[in-house]
């Protein structure tokens, strides 16, 4: 398989796509965390917990917002790369999402784009449902595009120079190669879901804080 620019694009997309999948999964977890409040109603009503809970919500929203730009820019990068590589079909598949992202980003209600995940309104069930659905859709989209990229990486147009027979042989190969990361992704997604349904004792209490911690450190270091 010749290593064309297109192949490079697909490779890069493959890698970045897995990160997008992670983002999406994280979004799903975050919304689930927002939705569930495990405390007893009496505790919930307690002013002290109010503070804690509010902080939690604000923190999650803050992180969600921080992830927005990376996600959108990564996806934008795909589109630019495929445009350059003249991969029109792939580009065509990505364009709708690109527009959706652009709309979402520039259509935020405030003048300063900060309201995308607004702690004050995100807790409305409607918003929450919408965001959660969006996250699931995105995850499935990224997952499918992951396979798509993988497929084209293995047997895409750059391989057209090769014979048909070779292409055929490479297809199963590509699938088998694809199997490892795929299995990982699928497993992760199902685990997250599983845990989520468990009222996310794990991911929310263990993974999430660490993730938050990690990202906060990153952001702190950035700001300094």
């Amino acid at each position, binding site marked *: 398989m010749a290593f064309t620019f297109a192949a490079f694009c697909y490779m890069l997309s493959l890698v970045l796509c897995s990160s997008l999948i992670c983002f999406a999964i994280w979004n799903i977890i975050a919304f689930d965390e927002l939705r569930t409040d495990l405390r007893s109603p009496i505790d*919930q009503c307690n*002013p002290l917990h109010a503070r804690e809970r509010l902080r939690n919500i604000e923190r999650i929203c803050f992180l969600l917002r921080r992830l927005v730009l990376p996600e959108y820019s990564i996806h934008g990068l795909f589109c630019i790369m495929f445009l350059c590589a003249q991969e029109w079909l792939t580009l065509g598949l990505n364009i709708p999402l690109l527009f959706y992202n652009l709309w979402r980003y520039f259509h935020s209600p405030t003048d300063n784009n900060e309201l995308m995940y607004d702690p004050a309104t995100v807790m*409305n069930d409607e918003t929450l449902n919408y965001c959660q659905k969006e996250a699931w859709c995105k995850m499935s989209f990224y997952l499918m595009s992951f396979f798509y990229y993988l497929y084209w990486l293995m047997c895409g147009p750059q391989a057209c120079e090769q014979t048909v027979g070779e292409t055929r042989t490479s297809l199963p190969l590509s699938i088998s190669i694809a199997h490892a990361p795929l299995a990982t992704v699928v497993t992760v997604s199902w685990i997250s879901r599983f845990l989520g349904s468990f009222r996310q004792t794990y991911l929310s209490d263990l993974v999430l804080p660490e993730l938050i911690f990690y990202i906060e450190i990153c952001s702190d270091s950035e700001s300094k």
Partner: protein
Amino acid sequence: MQQPLSTGHGAPLQNSSSAPEHHQQVPNKAPLAPTAGQYDFTYYQNDYQAPVHNIIRPSLCPTSSGSPQGPGQIYTTLPLGPSLIAPQGPNLIAARPQLDHIPQQAGYVPSGGYYPGQVSYNVPFQSTTQGVYPHSTTSVNNAHPGFSYHHAMPVSSTQYSVPLTSQTLHPASSQPLVGVLPSRVKPLPETRQRHTQASFQPYPAGNTGAAWQPLPEASVTTPTSPIVNPTVTSSSANSQTSTVPPLLMPHHVNQSYLPDRPNVATLPAVGAPHARRPPPSAHQPVSASASPAPASEAQEGMHYGYVANNQVNSAPSPLSSTSDDEDDDDEAGVDTSSSSSSSTNTSLPNNYDALEGGSYQDSSSSATTVPAPSDPRSSMSTKPFGYAYPTLQPAYQNVASPSHSVRQPTGPGYSPGPQQFTRPFSSVNQLSSAMEGLTFQNRQAEALKQVSLLQERNILPPVPIQSPQSNLSPELQKLNCSPDLFRCTLMNIPQTQALLNKAKLPLGLLLHPFRDLTHLPVITSSTIVRCRSCRTYINPFVSFLDQRRWKCNLCYRVNDVPEEFMYNPLTRSYGEPHKRPEVQTATVEFIASSDYMLRPPQPAVYLFVFDVSHNAVESGYLNICCQSLLENFDKLPGDSRTRIGFISFDSTVHFFNLQEGLSQPQMLIVSDIEDIFIPTPDSLLVNLHESKELVKDLLKVLPTMFTSTRETHSALGPALQAAFKLMSATGGRISVFQTQLPSVGVGHLLSREDPNQRSTTKGVHHLGPATDFYKKLALDCSGQQVAVDLFLLSGQYTDMASLACMSKYSAGSIFYYPSFHHIHNPAQVEKFQKDLKRYLIRKIGFEAVMRIRCTKGLSIHTFHGNFFVRSTDLLSLANINPDSGFAVQMSIEESLVDTSIVCFQAALLYTSSKGERRIRVHTLCLPVVNSVADIYAGADVQAITCLLATMAVDRSVSSSLSDARDALINAVVDSFTAYRSTVSNLQQSVLVAPNSLRLFALYILALLKQQAFRTGTSTRLDERVFAMCEIKTQPLVHLMLMIHPNLYRIDNLTDEASIIVGDKMIPQPPILQLSAEKLSKEGAFLMDCGSVMYLWIGKNCNSSFISEVLGFSNYASMPQNMTQLPELNTTLSQRTNSFVSWLRDSRPFLSIIYVVKDDGPFKANFLQKLVEDRTESALSYYEFLLHIQQQISK
């Protein structure tokens, strides 16, 4: 306007002209004498001089039936059931129906004896029945079962809503709930003529257990009840069954009667009883001609005998007026356990503790209480329905009917609490409930009646609209939460989401949870009984499986009844859990145990943040503000721990050290606004009582300290940060006074408004905040239980959209005084003063949370109001105040097929200013229906409008104003389309609406012309945004006034149909349509827009009005910008003033009154509120309907 009433009867006008016909009774409070068993009523006639043209009451008189029988008998027929009741003369209370057409309402004044005025009513009858006391006749009428008072029960006041039937009153109406069925029957020709309303306004007999005493006259008490006039009988029978077709819908009269204070003295009868009414006003063409002799009337009465009977039935109801009408705040009201107070409410005493004391008398409230259709306290008195629109289409006449059954009028009466009145006889009750069952269908049919909007010219009823009645059984109905507190857009909940989608109506709740209530059972109990799985509080709608177990009505889990709950302290009996106050009233307050607090309840902490820049000093607000604080210093809610502090700021932030022991306040200036810090954290917030003198000193000198300042900058952001730091340890309330755009430090803002775009139709920008600093601050505050209230006093643009965020998310409130100046704008100054006073002394709850639960299958998905949504069903409210309302939108997630009722429970947990943790619980129960028709029948048009308004606000911020406007129009189009395709079977070309939604298009049009949503008319951005904030937070009653003002003609106020509040008579003119067509140059018109009133004086206005009310010799000599009504010593002035002040008293904040002259500055504002008229940029009502029709037929 009025046409002579038709043929059969004498001209309707005649009625008006003939004094006797008018029945006007002024309800008074029953004297409260709790004396055992006897009640005397005195009726007064208000109407003795009715200038009223409109009044037509004649045929209605029950007596008119001209019963061959003695008059007494006639009356007795009333009770239909009467027989049941009748025999017990003593118990019967005579209630007088108000038969007036007259716009004014008639009130009863129960004090011993009927007042002579009644005579006048009966006049026609009298002729027939001679020798009978007019009173007696009336009294007979009164013998309505409903009136009779149960001894044991504290009498609750009942108000009947008087159905204004054009034709006749429905007999059934006599019974509070049941009786008034609007019958959809087509109007008989005659009916037109008589548009009468009878309102019952029974007053509570006071708390006394006394039985009502029958009138002295034997006739009254005569048990003859069974006797019906022959003529009458058939009709009466029908009426009782509520099926009577011939009757037009009674108009609902909603006057809520203002709760009388127990102390109120009964009014002396006004005027000669027999006094004739003044000749009809010029409006009424007919009037002059018609002055039917009583005899003739009697004849008529004969013809329409059935009518008369009906009226009789409907008429009287004793009022128990125990309720206070204090609108506000007092906790005292709440806590008072006096037996008297308890009477108005359900039978439960307010204070549980008191109950334990044994003062409570157990009354089987369920059995005895009649679901009162109307709230006795409601302050509105009936207005005659037919008054303005004699020519109404039949459809129109029906209009008001749906509201009859409403328990509480939503009228201006601000204070009414839920009330029920009791009936003496259980058998009667049973009868009534049976009747109610029958009436449901009628009612529903009524609500569903198709109204052809394009053909109904006069669609607005002259009386305030009530919420519709649900299909609930009467037993549940009477337990239900007051519509003032808790309202649902659909009184009948659809079974599935699909069904809801079919109806195209929004499903949501409107709440006013912390409203000032005069009667509220307060329960102290070590265990608060709640469902174990969903934590619902026990409420009247749970079912007891047996003595030991109850089933939750929200999640259906079966719970145990705790041992403690078995004991009923009210009756001191054991084993009656279902008699506990928690399960007897839908609104209760618990004093929470220590489980509900992890830290001690916070003290009341108030921090005032003053803008003292040059601009602020110029406006002169500081002086007023400090003055007001000084005056109300001792009334600030709180206990011995209350703390207070002050911060002022210009380009620096000033703190005031008020530590006890200092000889004078110290001012500490922090000029480092980039990194604000608190200089002496301990001594800035000080105990109110310990440092009282210092605080007072400070307030005295503060206004003078900055008089010569030249600092023009405003560092609001840093000042708020400092305030937050100061408050975060305790929580509390920050009151911010700001007069200009913050210009330095964090949170500084730039002007975003382009004055040239104020009237653009292209879209309004900058409705959202420019920075999220204020929102973040608000969220921080919310986390620390601090609320920020914003007072914006400014002439220029101050970016309300950004600043308002500080209150929106911290559960604060927002006040806006555009163009405030202490000299140039005295009206605003007065409003500011009064508002501030109310603000300072109103009740307040700290660190509150509100959770709204609903039956499994329903889910709440969006909240509207000022708060922070902490969890999907939990609202975090740093402060709760009695003037804020909330709205929620709901969806149906699971089918509700398995259940026949659904319940909603709002529980508000808060810390009172006295440091008690309390939980106020409201429960609303609604039936589930499976047909679209039922959904439409239960549609509450006001609630729908308000909910749509809040949704539109969200839409305009998140999308655009034009989107929001389109969405509003689409809401009407969709629902009418859906109605036509599902329920109605009419031709395409006709625009029809169900009767329940007949005002929908009008309200939406009004909304589109409201400041918040209008386009094409110059609207300042701040005012627009403020209007939007108001829409989100105002409770329904006030919001409706903002959207659709009430217009009254007040140059010819009379005492007819007045209601009596305290010792004043409040005239009740009819509400006119908002159209210039209703204005006349000869009149004076008052438009009540909630926070503002306009008094429009016609050019040729009666000079006596100008001189007697306004104090000027003629029109030309009146100043352009009058904002006060002088108190003059003339009858007319007193009437006008009492009416205006009554309107004002019904709302928490002052309404400025602008006197509008044709050449005056307020004329444009006034004309813009005439929403039915066409303006340069907006459609008229008729055009709007055409537009809708066009959309529908697309």
